[in-house]
């Protein structure tokens, strides 16, 4: 069983579009019924918008905790506010109150309160889902707006996907990753066999690609790069090639800018299923062929 993750650094380079296309392409060939899908972008989970899966299981996801002050026993000494490093305690209308958005859940105030008036309450911060899609089981989640704990939810999504793949003896776990390089990306990277970077040849895209490549290498995961919207700025594409050659990172294809992608998204289909002869579909299919071959050659 191998795990492929799709990352980018910069947002909007086409990770989800490519993941959906890969899921479709895998279902057409020798990897039919061999794939488990996971959407690790729990913050803004979009893969389900293309796959439109049928929900099988839904679970509450509890994250950190929030502090609550019992006004009955509070003596308004203000010690809590003095120790809070997150500006989460305010004095309004003669009461000390905790701002639930700012509260970090550290409980420092709990242990400093002389009247023991503060308690911590576990929070519901999101939902975890298991669904069935036309291209295979989909593990996904939704982190409620403004929450943290995304790393833990990503870990849950991937662990469950991985467990089913092992149970069912499937060959591939395909993970749609989040943007950025922080904790949700780090959690996505854990346990991956190969990371495909979807790079955008814009000045911003090239810069962010470098940072996410460094992140992935920091955690010891092998990476490959494909250049999406490659013809938008050829100089940018060249820069990506130069960087990758210098650091021995394989470039597995260039996908042209193609508005069919947006049309397919609106139609709720993978672009390769929607219009297989579209320039982007053809290019994505070539990238898939390379990536899956490299992935299956990895030992272990």
């Amino acid at each position: 069983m191998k795990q492929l993750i799709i990352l980018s650094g910069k947002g909007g380079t086409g990770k989800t579009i490519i993941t959906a296309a890969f899921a479709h392409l895998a279902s057409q060939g020798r990897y039919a019924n061999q794939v488990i899908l996971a959407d690790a972008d729990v913050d803004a989970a979009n893969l389900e918008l293309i796959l439109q899966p049928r929900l099988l299981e839904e679970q509450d996801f509890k994250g950190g905790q929030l502090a609550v002050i019992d006004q009955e026993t509070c003596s308004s000494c203000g010690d809590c506010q003095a120790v809070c490093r997150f500006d989460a305690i305010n004095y309004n209308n003669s009461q000390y109150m905790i701002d639930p958005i700012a509260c970090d859940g550290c409980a420092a105030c709990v242990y400093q309160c002389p009247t023991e008036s503060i308690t911590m309450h576990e929070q519901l911060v999101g939902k975890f889902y298991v669904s069935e899609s036309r291209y295979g089981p989909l593990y996904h989640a939704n982190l409620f707006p403004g929450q943290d704990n995304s790393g833990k939810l990503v870990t849950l999504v991937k662990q469950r996907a991985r467990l089913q793949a092992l149970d069912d003896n499937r060959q591939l776990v395909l993970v749609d990753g989040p943007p950025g390089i922080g904790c949700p990306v780090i959690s996505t990277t854990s346990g991956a066999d190969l990371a495909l970077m979807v790079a955008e040849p814009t000045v911003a895209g090239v810069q962010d690609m470098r940072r996410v490549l460094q992140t992935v290498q920091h955690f010891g995961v092998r990476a490959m790069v494909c250049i999406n919207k490659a013809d938008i700025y050829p100089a940018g594409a060249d820069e990506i090639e130069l960087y990758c050659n210098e650091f021995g990172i394989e470039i597995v294809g260039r996908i042209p800018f193609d508005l069919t992608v947006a049309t397919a998204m609106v139609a709720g289909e993978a672009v390769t299923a929607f219009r297989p002869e579209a320039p982007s579909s053809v290019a994505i299919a070539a990238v898939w062929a390379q990536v899956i071959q490299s992935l299956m050659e990895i030992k272990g």
Partner: protein
Amino acid sequence: MKLAISISGNTLDSPFDARFGRASAFCIVDTETGEWQAFDNPAISAAGGAGVQAAQFIASQGAKAVVSGAFGPNAYDTLAAADIEMYIAPGNQAHSATEILEMFKAGKLTQVEAATHKGYHGENR
């Protein structure tokens, strides 16, 4: 001596759980007398640092060795600080904790000298 085995269930016959930090439960078994007790894993819903918390729990039970599927760097450091030996068993073959115990006694499990993976970084913010 006391051996801890990560399990999903609550008996010595329960299936082996390859996860450590977020294992469903632990079975603590005396390798000489065969006495055992199963505990729910207190770290299972930890926001972060599950490996640390699970390791602390194992240490507090007086276990001298633990068998799981993998140990992340924080779990490893904490268990090592407690001088608890770590062993791994393959996670994708169906074993019960009883079988794991037999494999341990027969010296068939691999002892690990370093964290087996880079950690799940379930922590956030």
